[in-house]
């Protein structure tokens, strides 16, 4: 341990600590620009200059790089220090007179203008970006170029660096915000996602997530790309982060299974005429929800990409639903949430709202009343499909707007609606892996890809596989009340099986006549459930009726016709054949 005095207070710090770390211990603020926790200090900006008195001799040193020494005395804000800092700020201002953070610092130290000239550069040459890239990210896509007054930060030869992984760490750390990320060759972060607040590799899945703990996104985390960084591991006081952890498979034995694998939203990019992904301010309903969320990137404010609230909004129903090109079915939830959006936009921005629908389906309890209420809020409801969303202005009032081209079938005319924002109410569709899941659980799917229930009225949560139940949108699009009701039903069905303690099986099983069986074992070789065993003593095959599912394959294969499928015996089927052909 090292003992020293800071502004007259005794302090004890571990050996090897810098003066800056020592002052932090006493909660003394020292301005810094080029310093960042976790990156090796470099002493470029000199803003952290303090006075050190060693053996009675005062000298000015940079606190971020200078190690603590036994018995020295430090002054962080005496006259000499302030004077030195003022000069440093003036020198920095001479280079970058317009950088906000420098202007702020200049104001605190009472400086209005630099005596050493005025330039409008954005970079203070602190090197944080290059050090970040090298030390933390581990790729060295940027570095200093040239020397002295000619010095600047650049990628090799000023071209897009091949090593750059587009993590955006340099832009994040730049104290003057002089680095911007551009999307070149899809290597960089998408601006669109940044707007929607998905720019962190460690995040909560969503605000109401259970368990409510952050997770590391493997796709964006730098560590999984360059094998370096691990900054979060160093910083986490509980040492709760472990990047080496891998997915593990656990086998659990259960009696019944409830499948609630949910849905996927329709990707409106394939409907090219709507311009999603190409035109700014054309967003999906889910993105609007994010914008509208109080925990979202805008704190619940409905804003365009420019940061302004929209003056007019068009909400387009049935994107991907009720469309022979995409999905024939109705997604059920869109009409109601679109009406909710109209209400929210009216309430929050007072913007003019257009609802473009095919049919308004407000089918549930209290829904029609909500529809009536929204109709009283001056929402422009147009019955008609949208032909196109474009930014090509034909009239002067359309300049700079998105134009929604549609047919108003109520007045029988084509219309062009200039709006600021377009919200696409996208369809709910079956997940990509629904086929695979269906195969694993041996349950079939309907033509639209959702899981098929045993019977639409008599077995709405059961499936053809005993003990497997389905709930929620994996069975078909549905809203929250319906999902909750179905989930409850599925859970009750599953529990009732366990509660009873016995399982009822179908009476359709196979039976082998012990007197006539020749013991050829053909039935044993064809049985997919290993339900037939060979009785070594009697030399005959015997069906285990608890295992037998009643497919009848053994009955079809038995050369002597003694394996019988109950309720589907050969005699019965032959009689049936005769019967159907009599007429």
């Amino acid at each position, binding site marked *: 341990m090292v003992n020293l005095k800071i502004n007259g207070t005794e302090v004890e710090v571990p050996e090897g600590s810098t003066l800056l770390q020592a002052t932090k211990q006493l909660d003394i603020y020292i301005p810094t620009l080029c310093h960042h926790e976790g990156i090796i200090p470099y002493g470029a900006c000199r803003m952290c200059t303090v006075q050190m008195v060693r053996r009675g001799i005062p000298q000015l040193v940079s606190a971020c790089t200078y190690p603590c020494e036994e018995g020295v005395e430090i002054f962080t804000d005496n006259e000499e220090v302030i004077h030195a800092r003022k000069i440093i700020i003036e020198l920095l201002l001479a280079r970058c007179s317009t950088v906000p953070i420098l202007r702020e610092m200049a104001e605190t130290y009472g400086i209005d203008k630099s005596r050493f000239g005025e330039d409008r550069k954005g970079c203070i040459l602190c090197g944080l970006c290059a050090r970040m890239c090298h030390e933390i990210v581990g790729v060295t896509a940027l570095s200093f170029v040239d020397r002295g007054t000619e010095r600047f930060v650049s990628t090799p030869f000023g071209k897009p660096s091949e090593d750059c992984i587009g993590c955006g760490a340099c832009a994040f750390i730049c104290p003057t915000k002089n680095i911007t990320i551009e999307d070149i060759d899809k290597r960089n972060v998408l601006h669109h996602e940044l707007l929607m607040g998905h720019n962190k590799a460690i995040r909560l899945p969503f605000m109401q997530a259970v368990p409510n703990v952050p997770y590391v996104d493997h796709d964006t985390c730098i560590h999984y790309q360059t094998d370096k960084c691990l900054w979060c591991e160093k910083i986490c006081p509980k040492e709760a982060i472990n990047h080496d952890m891998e997915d593990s498979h656990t086998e659990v034995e259960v009696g019944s299974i409830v499948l609630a694998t949910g849905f996927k939203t329709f990707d409106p990019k394939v409907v090219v005429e709507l311009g999603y992904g190409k035109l700014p301010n054309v967003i999906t309903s889910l993105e609007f929800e994010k914008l509208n969320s109080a925990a979202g990137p805008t704190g619940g404010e409905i804003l365009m990409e420019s940061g302004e609230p929209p003056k007019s909004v068009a909400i387009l129903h049935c994107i991907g639903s009720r469309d022979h090109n995409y999905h024939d079915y109705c997604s059920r939830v869109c009409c109601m949430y679109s009406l909710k959006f109209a209400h929210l936009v009216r309430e929050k921005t007072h913007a003019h709202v257009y609802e473009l629908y095919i049919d308004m389906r407000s089918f549930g309890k209290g829904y029609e009343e909500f529809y009536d209420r929204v109709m009283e809020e001056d929402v422009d409801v147009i019955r008609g499909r949208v032909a196109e969303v474009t930014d090509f202005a034909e009239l002067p009032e359309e300049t700079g707007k998105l134009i929604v081209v549609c047919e108003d079938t109520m007045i029988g005319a084509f219309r062009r609606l200039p709006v600021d924002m377009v919200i696409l109410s996208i369809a709910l569709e079956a997940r990509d892996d629904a086929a695979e899941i269906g195969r694993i659980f041996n349950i079939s799917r309907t033509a639209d890809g959702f899981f098929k229930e045993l019977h639409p009225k008599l077995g709405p949560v059961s499936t053809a596989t005993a003990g497997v139940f389905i709930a929620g949108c994996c069975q078909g699009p549905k809203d929250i009340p319906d999902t909750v009701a179905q989930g409850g039903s599925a859970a009750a069905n599953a529990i009732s099986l366990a509660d009873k303690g016995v399982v009822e099986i179908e009476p359709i099983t196979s039976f082998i006549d012990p007197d006539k069986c020749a013991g050829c074992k053909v039935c044993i070789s064809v049985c997919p459930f290993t339900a037939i065993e060979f009785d070594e003593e009697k030399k005959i095959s015997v069906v285990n009726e608890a295992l037998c599912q009643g497919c009848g394959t053994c009955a079809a294969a038995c050369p002597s016709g003694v394996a019988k499928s109950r309720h589907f015996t050969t005699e019965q089927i*032959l009689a049936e054949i005769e019967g159907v052909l009599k007429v």
Partner: protein
Amino acid sequence: MSEDFEPKLVGFLCNWCTYTGADLAGTSRMKYAPNLRAIRVMCSGRIDPTFIVKALVEGADGVLIGGCHFGDCHYQEGNYKTMRRIPILLKLLKQFGIEPERVRLEWISASEGRKYADVINEFTETIRKLGPLGLTKPNVEPLAEGVAANG
């Protein structure tokens, strides 16, 4: 071959896929030829080739066997067995002078009501073109004539 010949068809449909698919075609109010008489079996693997021969002998002009798509069998692998059994039967039928087109194997899932209706229409047309099979009960003479007529 008279124009007003209405083929008599027998269908052996598996309970989980084709029979449910037929149900779907019905509940969806799809229109298709009324010529097929459906017989439900739990699995296409239950279909003993005897049934098909019996149906033909009893006066059916064609037989449809409907099962699940591969990998979808409710009993895991019943349809694979059918897939192997039917071609052997077809070879046999050929030797008896019965056109193999009269026995058709189709995989129709529970959601393919449309496919079911299409298959029935198509199959009915095929058999209509082939004409009556002309087999009746084995103890009656026309068996030999029928075989000769259909060559």
